[in-house]
């Protein structure tokens, strides 16, 4: 399966293996890990929640978009949900390609699109509180965590 949402720890070698092939000379991976400090505030742990069926559908859509833009790439993408500790892997994206420019460009495209329109949310837990990031009170993430005009159906 190209796209996956899991509650288990992500093994990056598994994600890598999904895109390895005889025609590929370049594989890029992006691995998002849980960072301890954000804007100077210390995170204890995170919780991720997904609208799972739609999130998978949107991840598959991103892969389709990538193959339209870069027909030579193969893609694998996995997002973890549930409770994650500092340095745990939240997302891994692997892109293989015959040559490296496409592998870098398509990979970068994938993570930007995920952050824009895949319905997954994180709740940060700090020593002195907790908050859903990108929530309706407005945060730094607010402006980017929104699908584009073209992503909407009438």
């Amino acid at each position, binding site marked *: 399966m190209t796209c996956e949402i899991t509650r288990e720890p992500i093994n990056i070698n598994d994600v890598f293996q999904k895109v390895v092939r005889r025609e590929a000379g370049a594989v890029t991976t992006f691995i998002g890990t849980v960072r301890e400090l954000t804007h100077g505030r210390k995170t204890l742990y995170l919780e991720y929640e997904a*609208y799972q069926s739609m999130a998978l559908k949107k991840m598959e859509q991103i892969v389709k978009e990538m193959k339209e833009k870069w027909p030579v790439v193969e893609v694998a993408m996995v*997002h973890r949900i549930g409770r994650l500790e500092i340095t745990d892997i939240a997302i891994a994206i692997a892109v293989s390609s015959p040559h490296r420019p496409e592998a870098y460009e398509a990979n970068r495209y994938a993570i930007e699109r995920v*952050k824009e329109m*895949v*319905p997954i949310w994180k709740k940060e837990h700090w020593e002195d509180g907790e908050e859903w990031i990108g929530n*309706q009170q407005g945060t730094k993430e*607010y402006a980017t965590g929104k699908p584009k005009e073209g992503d909407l159906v009438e």
Partner: protein
Amino acid sequence: MNKVLLFAQLKENAGKSFIEINAAGKTVGELRAYLEKKASLGSLDGIMIAVNEEFAKDEKVIGEHDEIALIPPVSGG
């Protein structure tokens, strides 16, 4: 009846993961106004509405068994 799925802060505010209302025939924009008035979820500013797992514009008309979801700005990745 239509299920309206709630996530993240909205789910916590409501204390449940969905509400049920009859939204068939309403547009997404009308549903939004209705929910803001009646569902005590607070302001839905910046909340997207998805119909059957697709982001929907305000003009879209909701069908009888369509699955609705309120989508706060996402923060995955």
